[in-house]
């Protein structure tokens, strides 16, 4: 049996990577993927705690997160495609219409 610690540490590392990529990557697709990474890191923590405490609440939440993430992916990808079509680029630095 793998100790819960390991799961949590792995989850934290994945989440950290996600945050890091979210801030420093320029490609929209990559940023999008980093958000997915963070969500799944959280899912991992949920499942680990669910097992550790022997309660199902965590797993229920994971299902919710997956559903919401799927919806978000659909909308998000739609936006990304529009941006790619209109601006011929996926670089967030260039998506700057709101800039002062």
């Amino acid at each position, binding site marked *: 049996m793998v100790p819960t610690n390991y799961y949590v540490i792995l989850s934290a590392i994945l989440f950290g990577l996600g945050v890091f990529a979210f*801030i420093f990557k320029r490609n929209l697709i990559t*940023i999008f993927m980093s958000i997915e990474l963070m969500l799944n890191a959280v899912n991992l923590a949920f499942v680990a705690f669910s097992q550790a405490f022997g309660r199902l609440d965590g797993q229920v939440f994971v299902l919710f997160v997956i559903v919401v993430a799927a919806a978000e992916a659909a909308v998000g990808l739609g936006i990304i495609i529009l941006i790619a079509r209109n601006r011929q680029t996926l670089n*967030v630095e260039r*998506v*700057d*219409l709101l800039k*002062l």
Partner: protein
Amino acid sequence: MPAHPILEYLWIIPLLPLLGSAINGLLGAKWPNRIVNIAAIGSTGLSFLCALEAVREFFDSGQVLFRKEFFAWITAGNFRAGFDLQMDQLTVVMVLVVTGVGWLIHIYATGYMAHEGGYYRFFSYLNLFMFFMLILVLAANYVLLFVGWEGVGLSSYLLIGFYFLKKSAADAGKKAFIVNRIGDFGFMLGMFFLFRTFGTLDFQTLFAKAGLWPAEAMGQFGTFTIACLLLFMGATGKSAQLPLYVWLPDAMEGPTPVSALIHAATMVTAGVYVVARSHILFTYAPTAMLVVAIVGCATAFFAATIGLVQTDIKRVLAYSTVSQLGYMFLACGVGAFGAGIFHLMTHAFFKALLFLAAGSVIHAIGGEQDMTKMGGLSKKIRWTYGTMLVATLAIAGAPGFSGFFSKDAILVAVAGKYWLYGFGLLSALLTSFYMFRLIFLTFFGKPRYDEHKVHAHESPRSMFIPLVILALLSIVGGWLAAPEFWGHANYFEDFLNPVFASPTQSVKTIPVDTAPRVGKFLFAFGEAMGRASMEILWTYAAIAVGTALIGFLIAYWLYIRQPRKADDLAKSLRPAYTTLLNKYYVDELYAAVVVRPLVWLSTNVLWKAADVAGIDGTVNGIAHGAAAIGDGVRHSQSGNTRSYAVWVVVGAIVLLAIIFFWPSGAKTPVGLVR
């Protein structure tokens, strides 16, 4: 149909002028004068007819106090102020004077104002004044009376400042309004005090309760004294008595019909009316009565002396009005309320006439008001001259004219008090002098105006017909009192007797032991009159006439026989002359003592410190602060997507840090759950 339709619908009397005012004020701007005339004169004329009918019905119903509550205006706890109107003998006199004289002056004004701009505005204000004045005299409680009281002040302000482009007129309007406010302040305090004491401001109940008041409260400086002095303070403001008379002479900036209607015949008598209306309270307050008498007497004398040397024809009349109002208060102060109201009525006739005639003179010679630039007009404007002479004889107290009877009634009433009588008599002499001085300067001697430029002409019919009617009234108005001289009753005072002799129409409820107090002054007066045989009455009359004759002779000597003597006299008495000419420097004194410190305080403390620095500073400071913060924080909204990402992460870290590192047991901010 009720038995007494107009009495039952008494509100129609004040409502008609209000309608006229609204019609002209809202729609009259584009109308020709003819249509404005119909609305203005029609409404006031109808109101006069209604008043006549109401008075007939009042007599028909046996002259009992008629009182009706039309609707409740303010109800709060046990306080009730209703739109209640009443009709009694005192109201009869006032209503007839206000509507009758008011109507005549309206007619006169159609001629006088014919070539002025703002014609509709003028009549709208004038009708508004009539409305408020009628509310004032018909009101059955102090609150409604105060509505009229303030309303006439407002109309007076509007009309004094009618030529508002002229700075002096605008200033005079403000002065009148502000000086009146000082008096009104006292009046309001008086009302509050009365309400605290009696729990009501309704005339009928209040006076009935006052009659039942324990005798201890009626001492030298009791409850009644305070209430009466406060009410009297309001009266000094509205009726231009010392020390608040200063606004009335300046009020002559308004058009002449306004001076006649508001500042001579009706509004300024409101103070006398209030004192007479509250006579029950005043008879309980001997100290207050004494104050009223002294102030009245002092004003009568003081204003008369100023009137001696003024050269502006309207200002002479203005000071004369102040002086005559002093007479009325003098009468009220010694308990002769009937005589005071009698003088109020006769004064309304002859002073309105004097002003209108003066307006006619001014009209005739093209707007000149300085008497030193008139002269020799008696041949040119005969009607004006004749009617003005009648009014002058009336005010001077020539036998047979109305002023003779009313002034005589007052002088007889104060005869027992030597100082008051002496000064009253002296004022009568001065009155006679300055009035004949006015006549001689205006109508006699050689013309001192440029005859080639100015062609003196008689005024149109609409102007001199009211003059003739008022002249007739100035003669016959006094004969109501005449039978006294043949050993009969004074009809006018007899008529008012139910109001003044039996306080509170419910005199029976007053316990026997306090009954003598009720009419202490009245009874004393009555006894004196009873003892006074016909000879004494005739003697007093003769003294008064003799005094007036002396005044006339001095004026005749100084201005007809020896025209140069007047100037010589002025030169030899230079200090006295200049003091009088400058009205005792009272305006300057008030400016130095009251106005300038107040202006300084307002400018430096209230305006620059409190308003600009304090209030504006706070408001603007908050706005500037918000702008500065916004300017600083604005840069966080860079539009750079990745910087937003950083903010999200930083925010999440801060929240986590709070959750983990907040001291245990303490409440976390923003309700975070641990």
